[in-house]
């Protein structure tokens, strides 16, 4: 099991801003240690970041080539049995609840396919009912007819649950721990099964053992006041998973909190400098993991990050239920920042000298 306590201790013992020379010495190493990573997370020097960004670009191109993979999320249901203060779908948030009918699911998928996507991320709220699982399974069966690569972002499932979905064609699981700080975790997850920190932490491994090949983990930046520690622990979690399961394809996301209708809590702002640092330094430590950036981020920042470590981007996302086949006024999980169409994003990627990819896997 991921040793959270030991890694937290390592972080606490090494938080110290490095001198500029020390930071430059770290950058000259071929392989960074975990302590080096902590030091860089605590270094705000722009010259150091520029040097690191150049290296991050070189490494990313060496492993991924001049490619940016584009994906799209489809929210199929906003039913949720957990109450989390940072999420628009919280069961404590009085919004209209909807689950797309299976006909609507198909209609949405056809619309997404028409946009040129070959990969789909299916999302639901933390609906841990039997009915919710069967519904997800039915949606996945429909997705299999259109997409060679299907990922889900739902509440944690059991080994058997993941296994059933893998047999239906599930390829990837996105499951963010949100925060690795136990006190914060408890404070922001008010009710429901999501309150169980370790159930969520262990579910990732259940998914891997069941045969899921692509894993995406992350922390929601701004939940914990010590967001650098959260970044460190997310990366250590990823490193642990890679060591234990060397055949998985691991991606990391650093979503920043975005507003939603009915939002009523204070969070820690994470500025662009910190955000870019996390991406660049993560790339130096873990050279060939995927790094995701969603439409939570603005278009300028997203464009600027092409080539600096990012390998995957969502495009033309709708964060309410459905919304691709026809306009849907359903409440959104969060407000997006980059509202460009997929073709506009594609042009932007091309103008940077990169190739947009729409297929990351072939259904076998």
């Amino acid at each position, binding site marked *: 099991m991921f040793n959270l306590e030991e890694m937290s201790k390592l972080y606490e013992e090494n938080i110290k801003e490095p001198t500029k020379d020390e930071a430059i010495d770290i950058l000259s190493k071929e392989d960074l240690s975990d302590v080096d990573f902590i030091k860089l997370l605590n270094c705000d020097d722009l010259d150091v970041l520029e040097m690191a960004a150049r290296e991050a670009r070189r490494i990313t191109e060496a492993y991924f080539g001049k*490619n940016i993979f584009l994906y799209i999320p489809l929210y199929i249901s906003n039913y949720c049995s957990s109450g989390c203060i940072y999420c628009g779908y919280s069961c404590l948030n009085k919004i209209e609840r909807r689950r797309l009918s299976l006909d609507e699911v198909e209609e949405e998928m056809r619309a997404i*396919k028409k946009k040129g996507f070959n990969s789909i991320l299916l999302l639901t709220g933390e609906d841990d009912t039997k009915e919710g699982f069967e519904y997800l399974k039915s949606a996945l069966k429909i997705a299999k007819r259109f997409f*060679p690569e299907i990922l889900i972002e739902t509440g944690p499932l059991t080994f058997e649950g993941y296994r059933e979905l893998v047999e239906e064609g599930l390829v990837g699981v996105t499951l963010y721990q949100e925060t690795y700080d136990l006190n914060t975790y408890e404070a922001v997850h008010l009710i429901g099964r999501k309150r169980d920190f370790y159930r969520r932490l262990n579910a990732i491994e259940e998914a891997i053992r069941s045969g899921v090949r692509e894993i995406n983990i992350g922390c929601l930046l701004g939940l914990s006041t010590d967001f650098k520690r959260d970044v460190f622990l997310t990366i250590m979690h990823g490193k642990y998973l890679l060591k234990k399961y060397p*055949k998985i394809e691991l991606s990391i996301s650093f979503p920043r909190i975005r507003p939603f209708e009915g939002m009523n809590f204070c969070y820690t702002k994470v500025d662009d400098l910190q955000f870019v640092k996390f991406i660049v330094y993560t790339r130096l430590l873990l050279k060939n993991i995927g790094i995701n950036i969603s439409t939570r981020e603005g278009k300028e920042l997203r464009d600027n990050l092409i080539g600096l470590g990012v390998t995957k981007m969502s495009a033309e996302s709708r964060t309410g239920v459905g919304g691709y086949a026809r306009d849907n006024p359903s409440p959104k999980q969060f407000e997006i920042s980059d509202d460009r169409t997929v073709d506009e994003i594609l042009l932007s990627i091309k103008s940077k000298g990169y190739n947009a990819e729409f*297929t990351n896997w072939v259904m076998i």
Partner: protein
Amino acid sequence: MSFVIGGKTISSRLFVGTGKLPNYEIIRDIIKEAQIDVVTVAVRRANKNGIRENILDYIPKETVIMVNTSGARDHREAVKIALIGRELTNSNWIKVEIEADTKYLLPDNEETIKACEILVKEGFEVFPYISPDLVVAKKLEDIGVSAVMPLGSPIGTNKGIVAKELLKAIINEIKIPVIVDAGIGRPSHAAEAMELGAEACLINTAIATAKDPVKMAKAFKMAIDSGRMAFEIGILKEKEYADASSPLTGFLRGV
């Protein structure tokens, strides 16, 4: 300087990977300008069911496609991907790539052998990507693969031929062609591989991520041709001391 491999007569000893290039149009230019006969294509990119660009549309008909199983985690997946790849591309050439390590992207030789056994029986021309291990190469030769493709150094590292002695052992001891794949960062690395007696080199990252991939492909082509030519002539041995042009001990033989 043409040679026969996988049942085809090939002129260019430079094989090129297509997965890391900045756009698909450039593939045509590379093939034309650097006179490439063989390119590798990952099955997942040979997509025929969508509105987006299909890499296959950018590869001339006369170019040989070597389908790549990258992404496969074991021999079962590799075999399935190979079968799908053959259907999508109509090409019988399959590069078996099964990675077992996510840090150094090293191939899983054991799973690769299993996949090759099945694919040879299925009638493929099989090109396994392996760590430079003579025992594994011999086993693959016995199975009936068309060539072996040992790595020069780990994928994407540009470090060149890091295990020269191991590569030499493979080249010297097996009869099937040896294609050096992965880790070749500069033309001189490729020339070195060819001087050792490799039949061809497969280059991806060093061309794809160059500022001018077309020119870089040409540079690699020249290096590979030079290395091969030198190998065929017979490379002179390196010596510790200079050779005097007139014998120094000739007087003892009355010279």
